């Protein structure tokens, strides 16, 4: 599903976020990328969705080298990937339903089926009763679950999450982690960058330190 082949990412001037990184993630696998703050976890996820481009090596997603993709091809890559961002990136002028609807509108999903999909996604994360609420009215845990619902509404085969349990109390964090486990169980490839890797027992670990993979 994902292959990193001697990937490096350098931010000018001369800061190596990742260097000479090689690993594979198989289909339906759940992988936790852990490491200290600044170890390069976020960068790694951004390279997969081509939000950033590697400065060396190849990042293959589904056999496609995403660092070489033309700008016009990026949208179609990203529609296949569900992303939960570190800062969530919710739209605060749209309600819960509309936030989750956005990826489907973007993909040109038929309207009637789309509403059903949105409700199914909200139901899965336990927000079925909050669809008219604005994001500001939600608690931290609810906002995180909303971000997850938006990431999975397209039913992507690959789910990326950047620190999805940060700033959550332990009970809420466990709740969010459980949702990721559920998606993993139904066959989604899940890649989670987190420093709380104990929340994801059974997942394969990739330990990053200063942009390098620890054995």
């Amino acid at each position, binding site marked *: 599903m994902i292959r990193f082949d001697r990937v490096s990412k350098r931010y000018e001037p001369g800061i190596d976020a990742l260097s000479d990184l090689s690993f594979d993630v198989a289909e339906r696998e759940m992988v936790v990328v852990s490491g200290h703050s600044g170890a390069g976890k976020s960068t790694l996820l951004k390279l997969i969705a081509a939000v950033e481009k590697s400065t060396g090596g190849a990042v293959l997603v589904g056999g496609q080298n995403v660092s070489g993709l033309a700008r016009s091809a990026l949208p179609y890559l990203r529609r296949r990937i569900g*992303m939960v961002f570190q800062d969530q990136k919710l*739209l605060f002028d749209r309600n819960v339903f509309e936030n989750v609807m*956005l990826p489907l*509108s973007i993909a*040109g999903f038929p309207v009637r089926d789309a509403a059903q999909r949105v409700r199914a996604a909200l139901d899965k994360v336990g927000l079925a009763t909050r669809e008219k609420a604005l994001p500001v009215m939600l608690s931290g845990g609810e906002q995180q679950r909303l971000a997850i619902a*938006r990431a999975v509404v397209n039913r992507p085969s690959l789910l990326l999450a950047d620190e999805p349990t940060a700033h959550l109390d332990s009970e809420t964090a466990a709740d969010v982690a459980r949702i990721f486990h559920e998606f993993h169980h139904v066959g989604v490839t899940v890649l989670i960058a987190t420093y709380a890797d104990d929340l994801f027992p059974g997942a394969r670990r990739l330990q990053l330190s200063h942009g390098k993979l620890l054995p």
Partner: protein
Amino acid sequence: MKTWLVQHREAALLALRRLAAAPVNSLLSLLAIGIALALPAGGQMLLANAVHLAGTISAVPQISIFMAANAERRATTEIESRLNKYGGVKQVQFMARDETLARMKTNPGLRDVIEALPGNPFPDAFVVTATDERPEAMEKLAAEFRQWPLVEHVQLDSAWVRRLDALLKLGRTAVLLLGALLGAGLIAISFNIIRMQVLTHRAEIEVSQLLGATDAFIQRPFLYYGVLLGLGGGVVAWLLVGAAALWLRAPLSELVQLYDLTVVLQSLDPRDSALLLGFAAGLGWLGAMISLRQHLR
């Protein structure tokens, strides 16, 4: 195809919602565009009326020949036969002084004046049209007639037609120039408003890109916004010109009555109205397009 339509409808609705979300801002923008467009549109309205007026007045250039008041009937007849035989003369219309007097007396304003005069103040006259209507040829013909005996005055009325023609041409150029200038102004206004819109919706644009939106998807609501701005401004301009036409109608018809003309000032005709709205929408779109090229990358 259906998806495409749905996406366009959604983008248009989103643009409408954004316009409605800041009503005061939107109204002021529409007013600015409307006033800018009202200038060339108003010019076109006046021009179209002037062209219509010019069309109602005979455009065939004529030469009027007035005999001396003391010319006898015989002299006049001789001139008439000379005119009829003269090469280059197409048609001769004789206007006897008695008939002219009778005709003028039917005008109630003039009758009192004429009756106060001792005799018939009108001379015998001919109205001549030429085979060659070019101004130079007409001028030559008139000069020839001036040499003839007992011809008191020869008047070439093609001069004012030429003046009117030149004036209308100038008016057309002025309207075009004004249109081009203020059209460029509209593009600038649209450019700036869309720039502000892009800044306002930065977060939404970024999230949409991350969720796999194409550039076309992201640009669409902004382009509709530009089109709606232009179109709305065009409607404002159309209303302004219409109101001006109504308001000017009475005073203008009073004015031209003094020149024995009747004019009912008309607002923009359907063709000009459609052109105005079409151009306004198109320029709004163009401004938005240029702005997006600059600010969306």
